[in-house]
């Protein structure tokens, strides 16, 4: 195809070619690889796809030539049309197909007998294709790989999986071009390198298109009207209703699915006349219903949608004029992304109205303003040495035609996430799959992978089948289909929630009050309920922690008494006054510690203001240091402002000095804490699933696989006890270290705290800072007592009641 066709098509569409598109076209036509980073909606797709199309030959070789990888299955339909458009308009003969989880089996089979020229695919479906015996044949003429939303993928295990899959494709087609598409992030160079692989030099194409974001708050006039704790924010309903106008298309973002349900119902109850223009949208709702909502927003029939991150990315809604955010969005890039949903020209400023759900969130607003002012934006960190994903990938390749050791090692080293993988560790991964890798014994019955004429392959068809069922890195609870008795499906819900319900119980889901009629075979049959009393679905992983740059900013804005001009500033001053009455407002170089006694025991509140993730590490470390030389059980909970340690016995106040936060011996203490504590078990759950140690089963065939079911906690204990040096246990510990004890940053914070002036206050009543920690306890335990003692104390506690 002639490259002049690019301009021809843009002219046909009456579009103007933007400078960044021109740069991208030139680079791609030259055969380079790279990353295109521009704000959403600026035309990234065609910047990469059109020149790739231009490089195709009319009567080319067989096989897939352009692979378009998208992490968003929900968007695949729109993308498919977008990819087809230039081909149809210009009367070209290329074939476009889509291959995602929801494409029928027969269609997929057909795709492989005569492969399309352009294939749209998700990372998981790509992995599945690599497990096909014809993988090499299908991909050996591949010319271009385009990876959409790379900023979303790169910092997740899905990103690792994609990197590995791309490296395998490179071994089939060494000259393939790789282009990533990304939104603005803090570390683009790294993103570009990880996208194309270390064996290529990326061309980075980004524009200086910056978008101004104006943050407005919706608050009551007095502090009394704003609760001190809570995350639903329903109390602000009247204020939100004032901002809603049935003639102005509005998206209301919330942070959890439960919150979306509650808000939808609350608005509907206040304005029943909005029944036809108001909808709720989140990831658990049935796909058909979600599509209808998106379509309604697109054409403008629906005016108000309450949604979670389910509408963060995706199709453009040209009618949307206003964006509301209930509660703090917890990340700068998420806030900018959401604000951008209301603005359709890339360069025009956009507004976002934030509704704080509790008083302290007003302080967070200040942090957002500061971030926007300073052009601060989150970086995306790569995951390094994810053995679980590597084991999955190696098995995939062994099924899909097999591999040779040396060649595979070289290929894997081109992935940023595995560039530091030593030969020794790689060998260990292989022997894990071939012999089990245990240093202590030989097990002839274990034959997951075998070596046949130097080639690593999987021979057992049962193992192949089971592996293909488990491909992917997205782990979730078992899901239950929610269906009306008549048969219409409403959506999917976590099994753990459904297990709490009895027949006849009512719950709020997909904007309806439902009554559970029967629950069997992973299907919940429901009917519409009449009465208004119900439980709201509570989902796991509801609340997000502050992102790293926000955590840092929070401390800077929180200690700042501003001469109050706006309503917001007056409210903040009031909050700090109340804090001062009950306790104290720390200055920037001070660290506030509060001690409180309740019926439960003794509470120690510490406020480093560094964000929840860092507090988790810090709280564990502090608790560990306080528990030295005594048997004690601590309950720990954390939020973005600080952490709480609860103890049955009083704290030794002599210990509450700067030395408590010394960074000496940190390295050794991490290890002790991780070994002592159950922290790593949490990470291990996903690792076991991804690496294939835990088989989640065939859909709806749970019972037949009972003998292969195992809890990850039990597995962790067995491996730790009987397989010293196990790769995956090592990974779980490393992940904890990375996540909660972010080495450098924790050391930095300790350095600051050990130099701060410690202000210790005894509370008579809980202070505004301590209330959220006290009320919303999401706790972990750190114990040095024996099980017997703990049981005795629990039972004693029962007697006292």
């Amino acid at each position, binding site marked *: 195809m002639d490259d002049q066709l690019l301009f021809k098509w843009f002219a046909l569409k009456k579009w103007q070619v933007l400078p960044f598109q021109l740069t991208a076209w030139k680079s791609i036509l030259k055969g380079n690889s790279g990353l295109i980073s521009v704000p959403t909606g600026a035309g990234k797709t065609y910047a990469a796809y059109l020149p790739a199309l231009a490089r195709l030959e009319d009567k080319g070789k067989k096989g897939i030539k352009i692979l378009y990888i998208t992490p968003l299955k929900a968007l695949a339909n729109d993308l498919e049309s977008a990819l087809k458009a230039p081909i149809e308009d210009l009367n070209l003969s290329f074939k476009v197909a889509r291959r995602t989880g929801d494409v029928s089996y027969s269609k997929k089979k057909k795709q492989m007998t005569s492969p399309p020229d352009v294939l749209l695919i998700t990372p998981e479906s790509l992995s599945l294709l690599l497990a096909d015996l014809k993988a090499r044949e299908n991909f050996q003429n591949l010319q271009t790989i385009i990876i959409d939303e790379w900023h979303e993928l790169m910092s997740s295990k899905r990103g690792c999986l994609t990197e590995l899959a791309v490296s395998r494709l490179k071994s089939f087609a060494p000259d393939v071009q790789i282009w990533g598409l990304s939104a603005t992030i803090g570390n683009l160079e790294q993103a570009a390198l990880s996208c194309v692989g270390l064996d290529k030099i990326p061309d980075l194409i980004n524009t200086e298109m910056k978008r101004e974001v104006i943050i407005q708050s919706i608050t009551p006039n007095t502090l009394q009207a704003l609760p001190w704790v809570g995350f639903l924010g329903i109390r602000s309903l009247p204020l939100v209703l004032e901002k809603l106008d049935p003639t102005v298309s509005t998206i209301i973002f919330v942070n959890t699915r439960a919150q979306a349900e509650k808000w939808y119902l609350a608005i509907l109850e206040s304005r029943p006349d909005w029944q036809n223009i108001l909808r709720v949208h989140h990831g658990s709702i049935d796909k058909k219903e979600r599509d209808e909502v998106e379509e309604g927003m697109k054409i403008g029939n629906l005016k108000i949608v309450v949604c979670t991150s389910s509408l963060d990315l995706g199709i453009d809604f040209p009618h949307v004029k206003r964006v509301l955010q209930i509660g703090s969005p917890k990340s700068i890039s998420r806030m900018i992304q959401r604000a951008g949903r209301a603005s359709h020209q890339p360069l025009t400023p956009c507004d976002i109205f934030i509704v704080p759900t509790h008083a302290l969130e007003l302080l967070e607003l200040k942090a957002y303003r500061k971030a926007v002012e300073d052009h601060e934006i989150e970086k995306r960190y790569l995951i390094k040495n994810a053995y679980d994903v590597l084991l999955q990938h190696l098995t995939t390749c062994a099924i899909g035609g097999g591999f040779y050791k040396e060649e595979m090692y070289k290929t894997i080293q081109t992935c940023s996430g595995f560039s530091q993988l030593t030969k020794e560790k790689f060998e260990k991964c292989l022997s894990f799959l071939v012999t089990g890798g245990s240093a202590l014994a030989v097990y*002839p019955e274990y034959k997951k992978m075998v070596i046949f004429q130097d080639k690593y392959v999987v021979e057992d068809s049962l193992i192949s089948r089971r592996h293909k069922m488990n491909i992917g890195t997205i782990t979730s609870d078992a899901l239950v289909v929610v269906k009306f008795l008549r048969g219409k499906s409403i959506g999917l819900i976590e099994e753990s929630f459904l297990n709490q319900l009895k027949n006849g119980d009512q719950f709020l889901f997909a904007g309806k009050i439902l009554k559970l009629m029967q629950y069997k075979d992973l299907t919940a049959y429901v009917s519409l309920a009449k009465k208004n009393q119900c439980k709201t679905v509570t989902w796991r992983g509801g609340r997000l922690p502050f992102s790293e740059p926000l955590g840092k900013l929070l401390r800077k804005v929180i200690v700042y008494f501003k001469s109050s001009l706006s309503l917001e500033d007056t409210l903040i001053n009031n909050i700090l006054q109340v804090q001062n009455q009950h306790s104290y407002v720390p200055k920037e170089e001070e660290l506030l510690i509060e001690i409180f006694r309740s019926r439960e025991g003794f509470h120690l509140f510490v406020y480093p203001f560094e964000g929840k993730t860092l507090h988790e590490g810090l709280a564990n470390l502090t608790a560990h240091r306080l528990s030295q030389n005594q048997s004690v059980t601590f309950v720990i909970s954390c939020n973005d402002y600080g952490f709480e340690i609860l103890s049955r016995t009083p704290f030794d106040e002599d210990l509450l000095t700067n030395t408590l936060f010394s960074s000496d011996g940190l390295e050794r203490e991490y290890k002790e804490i991780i070994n002592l504590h159950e922290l790593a078990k949490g990470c291990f759950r996903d690792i076991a699933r991804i690496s294939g140690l835990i088989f989640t089963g065939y859909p709806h065939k749970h019972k037949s696989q009972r003998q292969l079911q195992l809890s990850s906690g039990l597995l962790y204990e067995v491996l730790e006890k*009987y397989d010293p040096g196990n790769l995956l246990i090592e990974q779980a510990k490393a992940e904890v270290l990375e996540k909660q004890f972010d080495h450098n940053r924790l050391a930095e914070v300790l350095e600051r705290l050990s130099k701060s002036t410690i202000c210790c206050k005894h509370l008579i009543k809980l202070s505004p800072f301590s209330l959220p920690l006290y009320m919303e306890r999401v706790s972990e335990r750190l114990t040095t007592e024996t099980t017997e003692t703990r049981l005795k104390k629990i039972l004693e506690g029962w007697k006292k009641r």
Partner: protein
Amino acid sequence: MNVMIGNEMCLLLGEKAVYWERENILFLADIHLGKAAAFRGNGVFIPEGTMDADLANVQFLIEKFKPTSCIIVGDLIHSNLSWTTEVKRKIGEWLKNCPVEVHLVLGNHDKSLLKNIDPKWPLKVHDELLIEPFLFSHYPKECLPWFVWAGHLHPKIEVKNGHDRLVLRCFQVFENYAILPTFSDFAGGSFVNKTPSNRIFAIANTTVVEI
């Protein structure tokens, strides 16, 4: 802990078994030997270790109480894939060296047992076993006038107050039947609740405590 159950004095052991002194019998349930091997046979790598530990625990109890016989109330073997040469050798050795009579009441996991068992093993197999007034059955049920000892359910209980939370294996005792905890450390469980119709004896390490 000594408890009157079914009008007999029973010693509930923290090692997840019961010693019945009057008849000098030790009984336990759900050992699931060869479970790790069955996983390996399915391509899931799990190291051996739990089986040795479990067999050693049985041996320890036998040496401590010197019973005349030991009853396993079902699920001695995990599945048909458990019968590797190594597993078979270890079980055979244990049975041969065992100084007491070993009885097995067949459980749902023991389907593969009869085909694979070595006829020379000193193991007596029963569908159910009656030693008055106790009836040993893998599946929990009522069967008056006998008192039934069963396994199968792997009971565990959650105990918590505001401060602390524990999940412990337990004996669950009803009026006419009782359920034994799983003997194997390599097994999950299902939660049970304390209700007026049952008594719960939880196991904290090696101590038995009534809830």
